[in-house]
């Protein structure tokens, strides 16, 4: 296996403008190092505010980093690029474009020949199960369907790395479960390298090859836990629950709360 993504000694500090010329500095990420193999499903898990989304956005090239290195296939990353596909929690679909044209956007930016667009779009519409909705505008879609478009849009131009920032966080439990299954299916079909952000322990265990647990602010890598469960995974099996308990222990340990409290909202 080849190393797809290498993060070395990454620092991120925000300068907050408090008004009247005063500023203060917050350290979001401190000395984060992480390696993701080609074709691997890596999840960043941590309490809210630990900087996991910030880390993902830096890899996406959307936020600047303060220090350190981010290498994709050995090349340093400092700006957004079509070698990465990003799926946002708030969907961020373009409301003025139909489903079809949202998916087309990246193809146009990449300069994919026009005559190939329809074939590619049809393929991804089928992949995410949105047949018949190609000409609908996003505001007519439900949250789950919006995120299906979001995933199709991020994959259509064939990026090397798929980045998902709490993509199912805004969805109800049932929609969430069906999209998790769909994502695993897509990942098994396309074998993309995936970096996934979530604060749901169950989601992390269900989806990932490896779970990278971050500490509370400032975010540091606490542990990288490989999930050695056969797929398709059974959320009700004892082994599944062992992993959940182990990850909950890691997170609750540094939050100073009972591990079971982490499952209240899950």
């Amino acid at each position, binding site marked *: 296996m080849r190393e797809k993504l290498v993060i070395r000694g990454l620092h991120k500090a925000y300068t907050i403008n408090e008004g009247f010329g005063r500023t203060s500095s917050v350290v979001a990420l401190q000395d984060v190092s992480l390696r993701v193999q080609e074709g691997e499903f890596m999840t960043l898990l941590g309490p809210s505010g630990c900087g996991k989304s910030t880390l993902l956005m830096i890899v996406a090239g959307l936020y600047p980093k303060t220090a350190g290195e981010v290498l994709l296939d050995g090349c340093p990353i400092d700006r957004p690029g*079509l070698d*990465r596909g*990003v799926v946002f929690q708030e969907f*961020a679909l*373009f409301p*003025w474009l139909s489903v079809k044209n949202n998916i087309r*956007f990246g193809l146009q930016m990449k300069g994919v020949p026009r005559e190939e667009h329809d074939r590619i779009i049809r393929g991804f519409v089928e992949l995410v199960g949105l047949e018949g909705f190609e000409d609908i*505008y996003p505001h007519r879609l439900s949250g789950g369907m919006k995120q299906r478009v979001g995933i199709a849009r*991020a994959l259509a131009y064939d990026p090397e790395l798929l980045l998902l920032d709490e993509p199912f966080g805004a969805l109800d439990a049932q929609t969430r479960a069906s999209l998790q299954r769909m994502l695993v299916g897509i990942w098994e079909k396309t074998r993309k390298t995936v970096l996934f952000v979530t604060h749901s322990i169950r989601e992390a265990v269900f989806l990932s090859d490896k779970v990278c647990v971050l500490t509370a602010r400032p975010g540091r890598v606490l542990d990288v836990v490989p999930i050695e469960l056969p797929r398709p995974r059974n959320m009700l099996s004892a082994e599944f629950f062992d992993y959940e308990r182990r990850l909950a222990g890691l997170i609750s340990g540094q939050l100073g709360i009972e591990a079971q409290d982490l499952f209240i909202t899950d």
Partner: protein
Amino acid sequence: MAIEKPADLARGVGPITVRARGRAYATALFNNVFPLFLVLLLWEIVGRLEVIHVALFPPVTEIFAKMWELTVEGIFVRDVLHSLWRLLFSVLLAMILGTVVGLFMGTNRFVEAMTIPPLNFFLSIPGIAVFPIVILWFGLTEKTIIVTLAFEASLTICLNTWSGVKGVDSALINAGRALGATGPRLFYRVLVPASLPAIITGYRLGFSRAWRILVAGEMLASIGSGIGFRIFEARSFLASDVMYSGVIIIGVLGFLLERVVLRSLEIATVQRWGMVREL
């Protein structure tokens, strides 16, 4: 008519629904028209009673008779066309100028810093206040009216465009950047469509501000045509029926411009995309 099946009645389909919808329209129409009709009726009665001198307050039937007469003679038609031409030409100029400058202001910090203070200052000047100065520049010509209208409308459009660009959801910009859009392509593929609701609001405001000034401008410049000019000229002949006719025409035209022209633009774009709530 056949008796509806009970199941159909329960589901609310069939002739009942059609009749209910027809009745809803009729009610809405009645609710809007009836108060207006009452006002006109009261007007007619007061006018006929000659409580106020008939030269000041003619009965409404005489006003409509005069309106019809001047329309058939082609005078009102010509006035309306001239007024509309001035309005549309100057607002079109203002749209181009205001949108371009507003977009620049929204995307370039330096342009923004340099233009905001003067813009706010100019916005606090009613367009009609600069009218005498513009007359000095261009004389009593079409140009004078068009320049004043364009000045007024472009400032409003500019400010709305600017605030629209500033208010674009950063998630959409990030999505555009993540999808490989940079520089000019990010600008016209993401920023411009995303700020369209605000830009169209600016056009509506610009239109209504220009419409108000147009009438005043035509009165001041008195260049021989236009609905504002007609009202002002009728004053010197004490032709109150002409004046009232002109005012009514202005009201109806303004209403149609706003409701028909600008609403259609909105329905065809931002409302279809769900970027504004449907009314």
